[in-house]
């Protein structure tokens, strides 16, 4: 079970899992067993709205860092998620087909999107944010949106 950093902006509470790294645009990355698991952050799922459908690139897809990894259709918007690392999709969360709401309910655990076999993990890893850095960046972004 992950431990979380937490911040409150206006009336919203956002959690950041302490055991992984982050792309600045709100995709988390967790290294495990030689591959990396990726998903949406709590801030991004709250910002995007109730998820209706999640379209993740299928197993076998080769991605460069910055390529589209998934399109998330919510009640309010279509959100493109871009992979913060390069590699090959080796597993997709099949639970998303039947219950994509797990992205909202459990963004850091059950709502993961895909597992990627990283092409150059050490190089990509250096460009990712640690939890505290992501929390600060996300908080600034949320405050900026409140100002309008």
């Amino acid at each position, binding site marked *: 079970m992950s431990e979380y950093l937490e911040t409150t902006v*206006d009336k919203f509470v956002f959690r950041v899992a302490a055991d992984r790294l982050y792309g600045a645009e709100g995709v988390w990355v967790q290294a495990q067993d030689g591959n990396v698991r990726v998903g949406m952050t709590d801030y991004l799922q709250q910002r995007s709205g*109730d998820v*209706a*459908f999640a379209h993740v690139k299928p197993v076998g897809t080769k991605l460069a860092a910055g390529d589209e990894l998934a399109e998330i259709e*919510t*009640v*309010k918007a279509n959100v493109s998620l871009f992979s913060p690392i390069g590699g090959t999709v080796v597993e997709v969360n099949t639970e998303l087909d039947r*219950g994509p709401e797990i992205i909202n309910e459990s963004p850091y655990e059950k709502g993961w999107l895909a597992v990627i076999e990283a092409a150059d993990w050490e190089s990509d890893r250096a460009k990712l944010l640690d939890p505290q850095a992501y929390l600060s960046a996300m908080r600034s972004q949320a405050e900026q949106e409140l*100002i*309008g």
Partner: protein
Amino acid sequence: MGQTSTYSTTVRWKGEHWGHLAMGNGPEMDFSAPPDAHGHAGVFTPEDAFVAAANTCIMMMFIWAAERFKLHLLAYECRTEGTKLIELDRTEIFTRLQFRPSIRVAADGENLEVVEGRVRRAMQSAQKYSLVANSVKSEIVIEPEIVIEE
């Protein structure tokens, strides 16, 4: 987000227990209070307006959510009741809004349980994102009757 929009209506007293309402979106009509509150039958009232505001808002939000959830909606009808409480000091409040939507959706070859799940989630989203539902103090209860046609 912290964005704001404004909406307006204008009311004008016409004498006795009558008024005229001009809505920001165009329609105009006379209104009164309900007969049990010294008004007139057969015309728009604040009580009707309150319940209608919630009912219409939830419906429009459901229609939007149904599109986003890719539901093939065949019919939607909802009777909504507002329960008024008269307090000891004679102040009044709508304590509860009870929605009973009847929803009919075509499965179009999809698994019936999956489609029903999407209908329920669309209904939950309709409540969550309804401007009016979010703006009232009343308890909101939604009891949908869902029929999925094969």
